[in-house]
């Protein structure tokens, strides 16, 4: 078939994102013999972090962030 438009790298760049640096963690604070933190102790969901985080996952694939629902 004709390949008149067949040039490499023409497709749109799918956005890749980096979460914000979570430097605000007091990583060992919760290691008190009873609890060992898996997720950063200095970072929990707040209105601000949630908005940032979700904005960064919204547009990047043919389904949406919501297709996470199918994972459960």
């Amino acid at each position: 078939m004709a390949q008149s438009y067949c040039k490499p790298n023409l497709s749109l760049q799918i956005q890749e994102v980096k979460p914000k640096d979570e430097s605000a963690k007091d990583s060992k604070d919760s290691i008190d013999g009873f609890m060992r933190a898996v997720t950063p102790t200095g970072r929990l969901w707040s209105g601000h972090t949630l908005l940032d985080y979700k904005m960064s996952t919204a547009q990047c694939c043919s389904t949406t962030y919501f297709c996470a629902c199918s994972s459960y």
Partner: protein
Amino acid sequence: MYVSKYNLDFKVQNERVLFNPLSGAIDIVDKRVIALLDLLKDGMNTSNYDGKLITNLKKRGYIFSKKEEEDEKLQELYQAYRDWMALTPRNFVLSTTYSCNLNCKYCFQSQKRELYKDTPVYMEEDMLDKAFDFMVKINEEILATGRSKITIYGGEPLQSDKRHKAIIKLALERAKEHNFWILVITNGADLIEYVDMLTEYKVGEVQVTLDGPREVHNRRRPFVDGRESFDKIVEGVDVALACGLRINLRFVGDKDNIDSVPELVEFMIKKGWYNQPTFKTHIGRMCCGLTPEYEHNLLSSNQFIKKLVELYKTDNQVEKKVPSRLVGLDRLLSTGMPYPPIFDACPGTKLEYALDAVGKVYPCSLGVGMEEFLVGEYYPEIKFYPDKLNKWQGRNIFSNSECKECSVSLLCGGGCPRDALEKKGSPHTSACRPVKQNLEEGITYYFSKIKEMSEKGGYTKGTTVSCCT
């Protein structure tokens, strides 16, 4: 003291993992912590416990001084979620046809061929113009500054005849004029004939489905006239990749084909597709849109997760090459945080509308053509059915009594309405799944990695997140 109703406790390898989806905290805890939470829940005396532990549990969002604090947190996050929705570009699903060139053995539409026989095979130009009027109007009303997208869908949109090609070309042209990002969902059978066009219009992603290696796929997804489709799809993917198109190859698993995944992966490796930067795959579970005769082949969500873990354990190529979200743990492992709370799993009428080939508007692609999902029309004029629309727009975990009380609602967001329709007869109910059991499978499978994260004192550095993996 109030113990969060969202706490989830998992027993893994003689250890306990505590997860609170509202705060996003995950901790490996001593069993005495679980005992303390039980005492607190029962209002018992906890003076024997170290005050620092209580403080830590509070810091991590597992307990609050009073219930109202948790409600306040919930509202704060819900508001942020609404703000996010307001600022998020929309997805418009454009079904340019109800017809399909394949006759998949399980597809409910095969039983509707008779029903669709008088339906126009493809969208006419004036209807397409009206569809764009609709999408542009909705897009102008939102606050989002990013590009909204159009997902071209069907039936099968990329069919091998001049009239289908003409309407797709026109749709791509209109999308370009209005600066929409374009995606295509296709069975891939005639993809090769569209590669030039999709490349010319810089289509962002093409989703193609293979149901397994050649023999399995051909048995399940023949052309309407009985021809085999595997080789044609593969040829289309080859050419598309050579032209730089981004291919998202989808595998949907059920009892009949799930064991063929390793063979398909081996095939794709040999093809060299994984060496192409524009190629990715994903795996999902066959769950709806089936003929009643095929339903016995479905894997339940828990069976699917178990099967996936089994495949990942026996063949590590499968996990690397066909990643899944595996109950959301992919995000935890790649970014150090789980997915944020989901207040509503359904984007329909909030972030997404689906426009069919005969002028009707639905909330999402899965509802196209279904009376229970109809919310309006875009042809001959734009018209919404307010009662129906309001029901969809008001759907979230607070509007459903089951979800309101559920400890996993922030993980499943009430589930998919299409699933709810098939399970409970209405899309406006919850579609409950064994979320906790599924999560336990995933946590058990990834426990060594999760433990490693905890031993390093929690995840320490942001990692690049690739999309939809």
